[in-house]
């Protein structure tokens, strides 16, 4: 099991966000996590990414408990968010070299060129990130996240702020990179139900701080998804 969360609770003061959530992802799973604003999607991803501590419950990534060897667990993760984590006054090449040094990526120069090619930014590698469009910045953010070849990808609304065309292109790129050379485990949150369904193998719906529903993407037609989602959210939120 690549990701396992058991009875995960996270509260901010007296306000519980996650209420005993259980989650299991196997190697190669591409799972989309849906849920309304405030459902706890980002909180869950931040806990898995070691950026926040759970109030209680256990989390294991690749069989390693999250509270042990946090530093080595971070090397297993690639995180893409609506924030790019990039330095706008450095160019693409410098950004990737910087992160590559932090992740101790071997043959860094060759690897940086390889990932820049994969995301189609090799022609703009020496331009400052500040001059990039939002879509290009997000593609560079993907290059940053896969630079160290992580087995687990966590994507927190990666298409926020992109127009439809750019978001479709990004979705295709993510899907391609998820199965590129190895079977990565991907957990993605999004508000775009159709894109989430199209990209993933499994849909999870988070409501009321718990996983309220789980379906294989094949078992749901795009036109059924919206009703299924809203029914689940209203039932889950009422619990």
């Amino acid at each position, binding site marked *: 099991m690549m990701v396992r969360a058991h009875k995960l609770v996270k509260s901010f003061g007296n306000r519980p966000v996650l209420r005993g959530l259980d989650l299991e992802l196997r190697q190669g799973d591409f799972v989309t996590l849906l849920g309304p604003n405030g459902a706890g999607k980002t909180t869950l991803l*931040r806990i898995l*990414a*070691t*950026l*926040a*501590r759970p109030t209680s419950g256990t989390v294991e990534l690749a069989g390693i408990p999250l509270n042990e060897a946090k*530093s*080595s*667990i*971070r*090397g297993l*993760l690639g*995180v893409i*968010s609506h*924030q*790019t*984590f*990039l*330095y*706008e*006054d*450095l160019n693409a090449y*410098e950004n990737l070299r*910087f*992160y590559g*040094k*932090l*992740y*101790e990526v071997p043959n860094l120069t060759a690897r940086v060129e390889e990932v820049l090619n994969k995301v189609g930014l090799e022609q703009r590698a020496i331009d*400052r990130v500040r001059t990039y469009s939002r879509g290009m910045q997000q593609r560079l953010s993907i290059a*940053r996240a896969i630079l160290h070849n992580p087995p687990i990808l966590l994507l927190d609304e990666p298409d926020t702020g992109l127009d439809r065309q750019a978001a479709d292109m990004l979705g295709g790129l993510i899907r391609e990179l998820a199965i590129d050379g190895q079977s990565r485990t991907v957990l993605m949150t999004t508000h775009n139900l159709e894109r989430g369904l199209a990209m993933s193998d499994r849909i999870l719906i988070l409501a009321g701080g718990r996983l309220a529903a789980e379906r294989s993407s094949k078992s749901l037609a795009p036109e059924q998804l919206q009703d299924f989602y809203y029914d689940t959210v209203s039932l889950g939120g009422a619990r």
Partner: protein
Amino acid sequence: MPGYLRKVWAVYAKDVRAELRTKDIFSAMFVFSLLTTLVFAFALPAKLLDPKEVGGIAPGLLWVAYTFSGVLGLNRSFIVEKDKGSLEGLLLAPADRGAIYLGKMLSNLTFMLLVETLITPIFGVLFNYSTFNVWLIPVVLLGTLGFAEIGTIFAAMAINTRAREVLLPVLFFPIMLPVIIAAANATTAVLANRPFDEVLGQLEFMAVFDVIFLVLPILLFELAVEE
């Protein structure tokens, strides 16, 4: 170079490279320290600026200019990271938090020392007061090192709060005060050519303070940046 030091260097070199491009932090710090110095030079009564009197107040004013501009730089160094989301990028990396702290602290120290190197002779000219003495170098180095060490960890803590610009000096100055007092006293003694024994005690105090506040933040930085 061992992996730990390579990561310290990576963070430091990244900060310096970005600053060389934008000069955001340096220009803000330098202009602020210059303005502070000018305000002191023109607002103080003339009798205090008399060559016989100025030695009693100038070192303190010089350290006020250093510390005010230093706080500005410390605030900026983390605001740049936070506003672009790159602080989380740093925290996601499998790098020891102590290495990230050291890289940020060294870049803050570099920017502060650079501003101090430029502002000190200007201060000397405006106050008609000689600031050239080789023993001033260890005094400024040790005082600024302590300032950067404590300031960097407090800036990291303050960055997640709403009133971050206000909170940093409020949290930070009470702890920093002993070092600022020691540095100002040592500067007074050095520039008045007093016996070296008077300076040595202050240097020893700052050195001990610097060692303690180098080790503690390395151990505590993980807690400081946690949500």
